[in-house]
């Protein structure tokens, strides 16, 4: 843990709770998929410090432009657990109306943009959002979240290049978790680091220990100050590790060694923060147990609530394609409703 810790005690305790909550939610997410209760899940286990560290260092008005592995960021931003689990279940309460695979949530009120699945496309979107924020005179930053794999994508290059040229308030937050499904980081690029890539775009790239909450928090704070002061973007490479599979459809034993996973288990980000808090006597074993129990209970309640909600009503299939209804789609809707009525289709 970074020793020059001038991060307030309250922030660290809040971070510990959020990271613990994130892990509890994440573990249940995987289990729910294994039990066949939800269709899919993308675990972030091991990346809690990177995600909560970045999330808490941002202002609530800053724009989060996530990928699909960011539950720690979503929780740090304050998105209710129930919203997330409703999305995993794709139920009637899901604000996405059951339209996306689990983990692709978004919530406008929290300036948390709804994720998509293509890798890297969100990076240039964040630059566009930043351009609009500057134009409107809002003192906010845009933060695209992505992994090591996305640094090879077209839109990483476009986003970095546009943000550099236009001097935009963007913090490119890369969680280098070692693996892009089966491709190790060293096969993704010959670049000595991912942070080094910022050089060619004309702005700073910073590599931080992504399992060290304080290091991440401070790096993001610094990048944010730079951006708000009109000094342009920063690329942050948070070096961390994906402890689990890429998704519940992946089997990492096919491509990586157990020893590598074990070596990272010794660097667990939650344990590190916990040890720091205990050493400072800001929390004790009883306090830790209480947080663990409370967060597990919160997750259980969100799951129970989500399971009570029915699926979205069938006719919503046709909503939100366009702002206005158009004839071709309305004809399809009518035919669809007729087939439902006749029992040819069953909800």
């Amino acid at each position, binding site marked *: 843990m970074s020793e020059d810790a001038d991060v307030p005690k309250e922030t660290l305790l809040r971070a510990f709770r959020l990271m613990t909550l994130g892990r509890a939610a994440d573990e249940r997410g995987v289990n729910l998929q294994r039990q066949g209760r939800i269709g899919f899940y993308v675990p972030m286990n091991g990346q809690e410090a990177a995600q909560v560290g970045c999330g808490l260092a941002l202002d609530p008005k800053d724009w989060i432009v996530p990928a699909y592995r960011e539950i720690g960021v979503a929780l740090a931003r304050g998105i209710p657990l129930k919203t997330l689990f409703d999305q995993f279940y794709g139920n009637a309460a899901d604000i*996405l109306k059951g*339209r996306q695979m689990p983990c692709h949530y978004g919530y406008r009120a929290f300036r948390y943009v709804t994720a998509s699945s293509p890798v890297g496309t969100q990076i240039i979107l964040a630059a566009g959002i930043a351009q609009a924020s500057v134009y409107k005179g809002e003192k906010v930053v845009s933060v695209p979240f992505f992994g090591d794999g996305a640094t090879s994508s077209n839109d990483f290059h476009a986003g970095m290049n546009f943000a550099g040229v236009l001097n935009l308030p963007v913090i490119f937050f890369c969680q280098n978790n070692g693996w892009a499904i089966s491709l190790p980081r060293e096969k993704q690029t010959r670049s000595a680091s991912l942070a080094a890539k910022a050089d060619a775009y004309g702005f700073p790239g910073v590599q931080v220990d992504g399992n060290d909450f304080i290091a991440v928090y401070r790096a993001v704070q610094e990048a944010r100050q730079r951006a708000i002061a009109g000094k342009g973007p920063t690329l942050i490479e948070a070096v961390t590790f994906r402890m689990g599979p890429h998704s519940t459809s992946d089997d990492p034993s096919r491509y990586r060694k157990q020893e590598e996973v074990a070596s990272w288990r010794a660097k667990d980000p939650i344990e590190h923060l916990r040890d720091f808090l205990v050493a400072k006597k800001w929390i004790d074993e009883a306090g830790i147990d209480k947080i663990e129990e409370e967060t597990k209970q919160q997750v259980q309640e969100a799951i129970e609530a989500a399971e009570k909600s029915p699926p979205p009503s069938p006719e919503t299939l046709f909503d939100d394609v366009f702002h206005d209804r158009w004839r071709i789609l309305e004809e399809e809707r009518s035919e669809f409703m007729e087939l439902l009525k006749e029992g040819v289709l069953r909800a």
Partner: protein
Amino acid sequence: MTEATLIQGVNQALRIAMAKDPDVIVLGEDVGVNGGVFRATDGLYKEFGEKRVIDTPLSENGIVGMAIGMALQGLKPVAEIQFMDFIYPAFDQIVSEAAKFRYRSGGEFPSHLVIRTPYGGGIKGGLYHSQSTEQLFTSTPGLKVVIPSTPADAKGLLLTAIFDEDPVIFLEPKRIYRTATGELPEGDARVPFGKARIAKEGSDVSVFAYGAMVPQCVQAANVVEKMGIHAEVIDLRTLVPIDVDAIVGSVEKTGRAVVVHEAPKFSGFGAEISAMIAERCLYSLKAPVLRVTGYDTPFPYTLENLYLPSVDRIARGIERTASAT
């Protein structure tokens, strides 16, 4: 009313929209200082400045991605892609992001933007400055696809596109940028989406076209008129949303239909019109629907005039359809 060209119609629409609403921002390659390689954005940089007319790096995915991001933050961006042939690096942004944002977010994040791009052949542009690939976009739910054929429509449809709530692919027929002339109405004269225009009235055969093929079809109709065949030319104007009533109404009147486009025939938009006629007014038909289109080859350079539907080829198609029993 003033006499103007099609590209002047585009330019006027941009100027009027930008003057009216500070949220309207133009971005693209060479659109600023240079005024666009076709001069569509001529004078805008000088009038509105570099914050509203942005010269971007050479990156189509970057241009469209930026525009989507700006739309998510509440602006009304108008992105220019220099040629439709170069739009493909942005295809992922258009199809995966712009088209799906409203739907995938349950309506939380509409992404309204306009992507203007010159399309089509007839300018000796070869493989990569000539193509018409509108069907790639009409087959993607969530996108509107608009193609004007007159200066007044270029202006009026672009104004509607800029103030619409959804992503619009605005295809400009570059072949007739300067040859299509006509009266331009003053001010913010919008033309609604989903309303086809009768370019020439007739009673014997319905001819459906859009963009640069509309004047070709009108000329072909004039040719067959001398043979006593009265063709009705319908300018579809917007492919999404399509004017179903105009298509069905005309075919019910004439009983015969020809569909004309520059794009290759196989899986082209003409197939959609043909199927629409088959599904909705088959029993009005007195002859098979005929398509007069570009051929199913990549777009040629030297032989482009043989590739594109010519007035004579269209006239032949109308004549055959009119005489088929």
